[in-house]
């Protein structure tokens, strides 16, 4: 009998000691994917054209974390598309930028692109593909006991170690397509990630929001720089 009680106690202790995993917060408390990007001074636009930003295609292999994708207020593809639109609008790379609420098919066709552009009075379409948008959570203690923990800071002389690394990864492939003839003015992959160390397995909602928004902001700034410096000009 004593043995059974001991085993039950042991199991209870072990289940109670399980580390917390990130879970979506209550709907009202979820962070937003909307970010405020830099506002650039008004200057001559790179393109004397109108740009249309369509909803990005979700090409991810896995959801944001595990089987969950509802960590944010917005749907991932819709939220990230809106952020791309805001960046391109504020960048002043084009005369005018419009948001087009159309989800492109996996296989683009020149006639369809032309039709969407004509219907919305735009010359160029931004077609984005979300390749990765994940939260990765890594224990810093390897299974064979190797301690990979990072020194997280000092407090009153005590060295604090963090047991988990949580990182948000964002990779997108963007294309700027001149709708009239289907020529591609710009196409690049942009990838950014940001990590934080945590002494428990989970992450505070506000912290998750902060690092996610930082990753999105950095990705968008990279995209601006690349379009501004490498996108082809029309003759």
């Amino acid at each position, binding site marked *: 009998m004593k043995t059974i009680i001991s085993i039950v106690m042991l199991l209870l202790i072990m289940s109670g000691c399980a580390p917390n995993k990130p879970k979506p917060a209550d709907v009202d408390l979820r962070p937003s994917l909307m970010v405020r990007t830099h506002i650039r001074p008004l200057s001559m636009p790179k393109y004397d054209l109108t740009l249309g930003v369509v909803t990005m295609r979700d090409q991810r292999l896995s959801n944001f974390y595990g089987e969950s994708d509802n960590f944010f207020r917005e749907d991932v593809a819709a939220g990230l598309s809106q952020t791309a639109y805001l960046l391109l609008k504020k960048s002043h790379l084009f005369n005018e930028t419009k948001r087009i609420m159309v989800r492109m098919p996996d296989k683009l066709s020149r006639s369809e692109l032309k039709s969407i552009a004509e219907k919305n009075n735009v010359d160029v379409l931004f077609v984005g593909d979300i390749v990765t948008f994940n939260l990765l959570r890594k224990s810093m203690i390897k299974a*064979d006991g190797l301690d990979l923990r990072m020194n997280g800071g000092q407090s009153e002389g005590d060295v604090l170690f963090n047991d988990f690394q949580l990182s948000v990864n964002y990779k997108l492939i963007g294309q700027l397509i001149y709708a009239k003839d289907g020529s591609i003015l710009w196409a690049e992959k942009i990838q950014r990630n940001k990590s934080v160390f945590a002494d428990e397995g989970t992450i505070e909602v506000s912290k998750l929001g902060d690092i996610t928004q930082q990753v999105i902001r950095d990705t968008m700034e990279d995209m601006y720089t690349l379009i501004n410096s490498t996108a082809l000009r029309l003759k």
Partner: protein
Amino acid sequence: MKNIILLIITLFSFSAVAGDDFFDAYQQKINYKEATAFKNFIEKRGISFGAEILPKSEHTRLFGAEFDDDGIVLMVAITNDTRYRLLVGGRDVKLTGTNNESLGIEDFNVVMDLIDPSDADSLGKTIFTGYFKILSLGIISLAQGDTEDQVRRTFLRQNLIKKSFQYAILEPGDSQLGIVVFNKEQWSKINGKTLTVAIQNLKRVAYLNLQLPLKDIKEEKSWYSF
């Protein structure tokens, strides 16, 4: 008697924690091979598309354990020998049949379950390991870390994302390699299997459909046979 039980517990615990195939596999890379070096490949307008059933030995080397028999694991590659940049898509890889059947790749979470790390340990072994940890390191230590299964699952998840055939821009001269997994039951129902992929040109919107017949595809003994 108590001493013998404690000794057995300790031995079990050491065997469970010593070394970890899933962590080691995470460090392993897919060895580079152009599509033309595959046993099955086709070439069309300077773009080569190859596929092979991944040998079981490579499952363990690359992922830490063998995939369950419910999945067919293919290593696929596309090599770009054109002068143009291309856009190749991981989820665009499909299996088609002579009767117009079409089978897409397995969902990521299903693929995760095909190589479930919890199969590596019996429940008893996990409990013994936990018990050992409490004895040796204290309850606080256990609370700070994941169980072995959770650690393995984390590495496996990252590893699968990294080594899957991903959506990517393929520069001229470069190759894209990665695995795709199909459901074995549905795979076996398709006659005249052909692996298809649509590739986009990044100069102007245009696609090239590549179709690779998998008539006599079988597991190779080694990934290194040319």
